[in-house]
């Protein structure tokens, strides 16, 4: 039997972008609340 071997690498930039998207949404919301 010949298994298929895949190589996967982390994508640092994509990870940072995902986390930044969450940070932006939570911080934005909080700023609005503070502005009230």
């Amino acid at each position, binding site marked *: *039997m010949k298994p298929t071997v*895949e*190589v*996967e*690498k982390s994508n*640092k930039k994509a990870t940072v972008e*995902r986390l930044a998207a*969450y940070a932006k949404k939570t911080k934005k919301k*909080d700023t609005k609340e503070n502005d009230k």
Partner: protein
Amino acid sequence: MNYQNFLKDIKENIMYYLPEEFVGSNVTLSQVTKNNGLKLDALTILKPGHEIAPTIYLNNFYKELNEGKEMDDILGEISDIRVEHDQAPEAAENLINNLSTMKDKIIFRVVGYEANKETFKNIPHTVKNDMAFTYRLVVQKGDDGVASSVINNDLMKHLSLDPETLSILAMENTPKLFPAEFMSMNDVMRSMMGEEEWEEMSMFMDMEQGPKLYVLSNDSKVNGAASLFYPGQMDVIKKQLNSDFYVLPSSVHEVIIVPKTEEITSYKDLETMVREVNSTGVDPEEVLTGNVYFYDGNELVLAKDYENQIDAAFNHSSSAVERMIKDRFSSLDVDTDPGYEM
């Protein structure tokens, strides 16, 4: 450069970047169905006299090209990956024929159930809420990525294993091979971005403000969402935070942990946020699910189920109190109408 020309360029030029031992290799491009049914473009460089070669996915490299990375650097990196994992296919072959070694290399990953339902026909899996665990054999873990083979029904049969045994072995091995990493989101971003970019971002938002967010992944940052299900992991987090918590499925590579505080009155805002980020900021093949989860020390549940249970319990107790008051007053034969006149 358009994507098709990029693929053509890689195929035509990769040989110039590989060492001499690769002369005469057969370079091929193919499409492979990956997470959530997405088809990715895969490169294989088969050395003369060999029957198998590691598969390298190219889609992310095209993104890097569009972000300004030089084609020369991309070809160099692909060459490094191919060289580092040169022995991986043979190692995989040896692994599946050596039962005692193989058993220590079985790991699990977590993916969304619904979006992968079709592929589960051929793959042993364990359903968990709206997610599923799949199993893999790790062949090599290095600086240039993780080389592994999916355990499909044929391989499971070849290994004389069943889904239950796979699950037991994977739960034991995965935390050892891919230790969990749990950090505040600020610390993760700061370490990944570097000081300069972090300072720049901090100018636009107060990173200390708002609900405190944490990131849970593994040491390789590849398929790290699975670390949430490591034995005892959720209890460790609950103890560390001293709080129940919500889990946001940021991607198959990591989850975001949000402690339950008074600031968060319902899971609905969190769910809206997950769905928005999934549709705009996550590659489709890296999406985990669009639901929010909740952990209160018992088991991980969908946050909507948890809140529905709380509401039902509240309504039940409210009607019980109402009934009790009514019974009490009716037995006293008191007119409960306050008799206010407008």
